């Protein structure tokens, strides 16, 4: 069983995920940010499911937990990808490029799935679990790159919607933090504090989205020039 710190972060993260859904319902923005809500609702269900499996089948090393963990992680990454594409659609919405964004996302998803399959097919053992793990990792990397591109598009298109800008920035912070903590874990895994970084970042994303939802109305606007560090 995980320790008390792990469990506290876990429960806190789940509470923040639910908080975002409640906030968007209260602010009547549930459908407007449907894919973000869907991602966080699935994430909450997965958290509860993981906890129940852990409770029932013992430690994190049990087969049941491992299977559930990897499949649910792939599902979560897929929904996060969907959420990211929905943000793309909103940013590019006024350019009427919705169809291109949709097809681009489908091709990217199929390409990533194909690449993941090609990597996993070389080792015949546990093909489906290996595929779920590989797809999740690769999609995560694609998501990271797509967020950077989206931020570039926000600056280029001079996006002014405060909520949308802050949601994308939170996502960028989350992905960058995740990549940094993974790199740190590879470099110095022996420091126990580093292993808490990823779960803490998992709490940060729904918390910052909730704050954005609460603080800013859909009509709130900001000047795009104020976002870049060095004025152009």
């Amino acid at each position: 069983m995980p320790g008390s710190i792990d469990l506290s972060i876990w429960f806190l993260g789940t509470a923040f995920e639910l908080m975002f859904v409640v906030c968007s319902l209260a602010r009547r923005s549930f459908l407007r940010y449907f894919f973000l809500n869907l991602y966080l609702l699935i994430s909450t269900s997965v958290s509860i499911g993981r906890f129940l499996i852990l409770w029932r089948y013992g430690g994190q090393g049990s087969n049941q937990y491992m299977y559930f963990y990897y499949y649910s992680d792939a599902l979560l990454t897929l929904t996060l990808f969907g959420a990211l594409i929905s943000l793309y659609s909103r940013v590019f919405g006024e350019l009427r490029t919705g169809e291109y964004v949709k097809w681009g996302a489908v091709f990217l998803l199929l390409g990533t799935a194909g690449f993941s399959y090609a990597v996993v097919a070389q080792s015949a053992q546990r093909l489906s679990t290996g595929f779920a793990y590989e797809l999740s990792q690769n999609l995560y990397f694609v998501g990271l790159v797509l967020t950077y591109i989206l931020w570039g598009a926000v600056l280029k298109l001079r996006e002014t919607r405060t909520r949308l800008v802050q949601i994308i920035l939170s996502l960028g912070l989350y992905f960058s933090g995740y990549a940094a903590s993974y790199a740190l874990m590879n470099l110095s895994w022996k420091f126990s504090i580093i292993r808490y970084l990823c779960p803490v970042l998992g709490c940060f994303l729904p918390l910052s989205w909730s704050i954005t939802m609460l603080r800013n109305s859909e009509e709130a606007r900001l000047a795009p020039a104020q976002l870049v560090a060095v004025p152009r």
Partner: protein
Amino acid sequence: MMAVLILIASVATLCMFFVSYCRSLVASSSRHPLSAEVRDVTGIRTVAAAADYARVVQLLRLCPDRREDRTGLKAVGIYYSWLTAVRRMLAWMAPSLRSWTEHEQACCAYFAAVALDRRIAHNREMLAQQAGL
């Protein structure tokens, strides 16, 4: 080697997103005009200075808390400390960095002054409601 490269790149992008996120928070209050009382008490006339931040934060601590601006003030406080650290560590390398950090810290001070203004207005409203009861 690869992990070091990923770490450097991700820390750089993390800083970029962090600066932009804090700027988007600060920008939300940049158009808010300060009341005459807050201008008097903080000494900010039209444009805030980096050094005003500490004084405004002290005044904020004297004023009863307002739940709505708590997280924003915390995030901007972290941003201010980060800017101080950047100025101390890197400003000797690039002099332009010093003026940039000072400008950013001045924006943080203005953000805190706007929060103070809102707190005073909120408390006054609460007092008026209590007096009305």
